[in-house]
């Protein structure tokens, strides 16, 4: 700024950003942070919706009950399996897709546009079409597998406790891998082409180039995307809720789903909140890791 320009008025410069920020901050405080505190508060109470007058403070009773609840442990185990399979599967498929879409071929633009479609679809629609695919009588998956003799009789994928969780994991992998592909593709494009040129002059093989240039160049993106996905996959319940509602039995219960079902169907908001709070605490480690990475990037 030149010397002749108007000197900034210190007070307004200090107040203006706060004025511009305050609507967004106040609204989020009111509709996000306040309800969260309320959830914490509810979790310390006996609060069943059909007895709204009884709101007795019970301290950690709900949490102790959670700890002793076998369904909690089942749901926790499913949540871990669910994350441990879905996220790596999405990442590998996303990485392969991104590497391919980074090559030169005539219809690259079209392929890039089409590959992201699953990500834009409503999860209810995703659940619907996969329920149809998995249908035990008329589903196309059974039909194809029967035709190619991979199975001898139709399998009720979603009604069988042994397969239901994995069937949903496949659906979620399908839904989420484009996100990885897009993130990784952006990461690939930020690796300078000259690195590869230098490496091939030095005689490095394709694989060595991938191992020593591509992967290190992608590590930041991979880490960020993985953390985000872990958090989002852990949280996502809409697909399961529509596909199986947690069933058969408890075979597709995950923690947030259990919390939701407990509150929605059981109307037990005290216990449901305690489950939600416990789940949040378990997830907090990943959230903090992610925030630390993101915080570093804020100029």
């Amino acid at each position, binding site marked *: 700024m030149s010397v002749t320009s108007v000197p900034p008025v210190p007070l307004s410069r*200090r107040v203006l950003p706060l004025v511009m920020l305050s609507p*967004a901050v106040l609204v*989020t405080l009111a509709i996000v942070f306040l309800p969260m505190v309320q959830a914490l508060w509810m979790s310390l109470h006996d609060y069943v919706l059909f007895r709204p007058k009884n709101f007795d403070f019970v301290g950690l009773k709900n949490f102790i009950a959670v700890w002793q609840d076998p369904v909690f442990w089942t749901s926790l185990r499913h949540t871990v399996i669910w994350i441990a399979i879905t996220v790596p599967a999405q990442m590998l498929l996303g990485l392969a897709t991104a590497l391919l879409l980074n090559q030169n071929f005539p219809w690259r633009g079209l392929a890039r*546009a089409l590959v992201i479609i699953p990500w834009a679809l409503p999860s209810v*629609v995703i659940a619907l079409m996969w329920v149809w695919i998995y249908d035990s009588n008329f589903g196309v998956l059974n039909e194809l597998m029967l035709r190619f003799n991979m199975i001898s009789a139709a399998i009720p994928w979603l009604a069988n406790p042994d397969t239901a969780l994995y069937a949903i994991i496949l659906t979620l992998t399908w839904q989420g891998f484009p996100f990885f592909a897009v993130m990784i593709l952006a990461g690939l494009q930020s690796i300078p082409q000259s690195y590869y040129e230098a490496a091939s002059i030095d005689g490095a093989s394709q694989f060595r180039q991938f191992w020593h240039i591509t992967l290190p160049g992608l590590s930041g993106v991979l880490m960020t995307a993985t953390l985000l996905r872990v958090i989002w996959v852990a949280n996502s319940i809409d697909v399961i809720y529509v596909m199986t509602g947690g069933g058969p039995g408890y075979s597709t219960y995950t923690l947030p789903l259990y919390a939701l079902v407990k509150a929605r169907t059981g109307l037990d908001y005290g216990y449901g909140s305690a489950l939600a709070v416990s789940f949040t605490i378990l997830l907090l480690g990943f959230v903090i890791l992610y925030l630390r990475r993101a915080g570093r990037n804020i100029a």
Partner: protein
Amino acid sequence: MMVRNTSLTRRILTVDLPVLLILIFTLSPYLWMALTSVTQESKLFTEGPSLAGATLENYLRLFRTVGFGANLLDSFIVAGGTVIVGLALSVPAAYAFSRFRFKGRRLLMLQFLVINMFPLVLLILPLFILMKTLGLVDTYFALIIANSTVAIPFSVWMMTSYIDGIPRSLDEAAMTDGCTRFGALFRVVLPLCTPGIIATGVYIFITAWNEYLYALTLGGRSVKPITVAIQTLIGEYQVEWGLLTAGGIVGAMPATLLFLFIQKRLIAGMTQGAVKG
């Protein structure tokens, strides 16, 4: 010539073919749903879905008998309302984040980021109690508020990265030429980030349109967005897959079209900030 041919074959084998396989995996569930939706219900279980004798009968039934039109309108109002609330609150906030350096800036930005990391279920339960106490369950207002919990933090981040991309020197030049700060905001910054505002608005619209759990919890008989309507269909018309898949296609259509339309810009914004998956 030989060399060119072998390298072309090689490319087809190592690139085109795998890409094609991935696209088949990506698109076939959707295409299968589309194919089912144009097959006559009576033929579906005897001959399976096919293009021969394609019909729009399922779609007509969807609107005539099931009354999908009202649900589409509900979704439209909720998603549109969320876009307005989200943009109105986030554009000024993003401008402040981008153009000012003040105490607590980093903390406030992280505050917006952390919101999207918390489990939805932690918010749904208290929001339902809150709306019930206020008598707002089953209103557009409740759903717009609920969707804003997702939309505001996201669009603050996305808009901040867009405004960051507009050189500061431009608004400083305008102010040197006698514009007030607001003049510079309205005459320089906002026009330049119109594409960003549109992309952010479209993104908010898509997420609000696709949202299901809030709609299920806070909606009801008078406000029933399309996602809940589809799920209700699954319960009521269990085996009528022609009708169900037609519902799926209609429900996915607006979001899919908008997405393809705005895709490039959206991806640029998505990969810059930290965003919902």
